[in-house]
């Protein structure tokens, strides 16, 4: 769950857009394997949006955990067999998607523990010397379990790097030619990875 409302909306819009893009790509002329990958991405985007909001952050926790664990297994299969992975990239990208789906399963599973200590008391901060400078501040974060923090921070680093790599690829692809679906696909992967990093950072 993301406590800052503005950030929550940003994450919602980003994952709604990337989810819509994956759904659109799924409807194009593609193989069954590629379509499966797209569907898994769409479900992941929906889950990320749900996870960002307090009311739905722990919705269907166990089914989601199992689903994303199975999705990770699917991408293991893709990576091992070298099956068509379409615009998602090659075998290396498939391994990345294994990590992504496994991270999703982990996030959904530990979310209640991670969020347990978040609600803290609010207060005000006086800014000396000038009127209109008394500001309300939200409650401070409570303590998150150390194991959750450690795993989350490692995953933040992984997804931040992955997001930058995908974004860089999207930029370079958009520069040299205009295959919208391909460069948009890299861009969507980048946005999803950075969105994951952001969500994990709020859990850490």
């Amino acid at each position, binding site marked *: 769950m993301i406590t*800052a409302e*503005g*950030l929550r909306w*940003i994450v919602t819009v980003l994952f709604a857009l990337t989810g819509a893009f994956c759904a659109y790509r799924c409807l194009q002329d593609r193989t069954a394997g590629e379509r499966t990958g797209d569907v898994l991405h769409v479900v992941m985007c929906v889950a990320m949006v749900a996870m960002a909001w307090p009311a739905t952050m722990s919705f269907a926790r166990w089914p989601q955990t199992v689903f994303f664990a199975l999705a990770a297994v699917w991408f293991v299969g893709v990576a091992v067999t070298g099956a068509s992975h379409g615009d998602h990239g090659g075998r290396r990208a498939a391994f990345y998607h294994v990590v992504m789906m496994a991270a999703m399963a982990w996030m959904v599973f530990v979310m209640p523990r991670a969020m347990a200590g978040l609600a803290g008391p609010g*207060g005000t*901060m*006086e*800014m*000396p*010397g*000038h*009127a*209109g*400078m008394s*500001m309300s*501040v*939200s409650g*401070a*974060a409570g303590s998150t379990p150390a194991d959750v923090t450690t795993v989350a921070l490692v995953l933040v680093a992984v997804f931040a790097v992955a*997001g*930058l*790599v995908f*974004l*860089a*690829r*999207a*930029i*370079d692809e958009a*520069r*040299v030619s205009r295959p919208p679906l391909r460069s948009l696909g890299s861009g969507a992967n*980048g946005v999803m990875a*950075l969105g994951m990093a952001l969500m994990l950072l709020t859990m850490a």
Partner: protein
Amino acid sequence: MSIDQNAEKLTPERESPAEPRLGWAGIRPLLLRLHFYAGVFIGPFLLVAAITGLAYVWAPQVEQAVYDHELHVPAAATTVPLDQQAAAAKALVPDGTLTGVRPGLTPTDTTQVIFNRPGLEPSFHWTVFVDPHTGDVRGQLETYGSGQAMPVRAWIDVLHRSLHLGDFGRLYSELAASWLWVVVLAGLALWFGRVRRKRAAAGRRAKLLTWHGRTGLVLAIGLLFLSATGLTWSEYAGNSISELRTQLDWTTPSVSATVPASSGRDIGLDGAREATVRAGLTGPVEVRPPAGPGKGYVVAQTGRSWPTRADSMAVDPATGTVTDTLRFADYNLAAKLSKWGIDAHMGFLFGIWNQIVLTLLAVALIAVIGWGYRMWWLRRPTRGEARAGRPPARATWRKIPGRALAPALVVVAVVGYYLPLFGLSLLGFLIVDGLLEARRRKAAA
């Protein structure tokens, strides 16, 4: 701080090589475009901020003259107790709640008795000025902020901050502060890039560019300081900064006014002040009465010049014991920097020299903005229908490799989140720019 004269040579149609190399040639067009559009966009806001800021810098001297009767009295040997002065003031403000008393620092200063009163705007107070030697009331005025600004200074302050347009008006100063550092940093990079290439100035526009760049170089540190401190006051970015300070435990501490249950005895304003004087709290102070049962007097230093004197003490109203002391020296670094930054931005920290430096900054900024617009004007075509100088070309991002642009985009997104007006205005610009480019391509096809 330069808009290079060759900007017009960059055309949107020119595609960069498939593998652009990271270097000055790739980055410069983007910086040029950023500096140009951001400068043109916030120039008017910065002009208003500079002019109103200039007026504010010298407002303390103006208010000393305009409100001489309220602020000053003939010196005398005798002094009326603070409680008696407060009672005289209270008689004139029956609907007011006493929030503080500021004894005069010298024998020629009046005592300021400060009230909260129904109907006052937030941060405004009602202040009664009392002759400390006779107890006579010299006048009463609406004052503003913790600096006790008199009406003239308060009016200029609100003008500088919000143009008297309420929260909507605060957007102008936040936009200016949010973009100023971007314009300055891009301008610095362009200037150093130009110097590195040892480009000689020739022609009227080139000379203006030299003036624009050199003056901007000298101003840079001051402008970055004004931008940073201005942002702490802003509505949205200010909230972000406050949140960040809270999360990092960098908030400004406050003295604890909680005291043991009292017996009903009250030492009064004079007793509280004397207790703190004995404890070493001297200089200009504000004595605040207990906020309620179980609370004590708070006596806080109100000095704003260097060395900063912002200690405060809580005093038990029953016993006169100092129950808590908060020294400015014990503030965390962020709180100290915040206090110093605010006082320097307002021209109080280093007295007259602070005011002179701010004045020079404001005047030079006005000149730099004027030269910037003038250069744009000189670049306008003298034939055809175009009435303004051609802006730097689009698609400058194509000259920068993805491995450099991607992290930069992420940094911009993070900054845009914490400085929302910067982020939203940039996003709006990119959308409009993209639409215009799409329309141009469609028309060209």
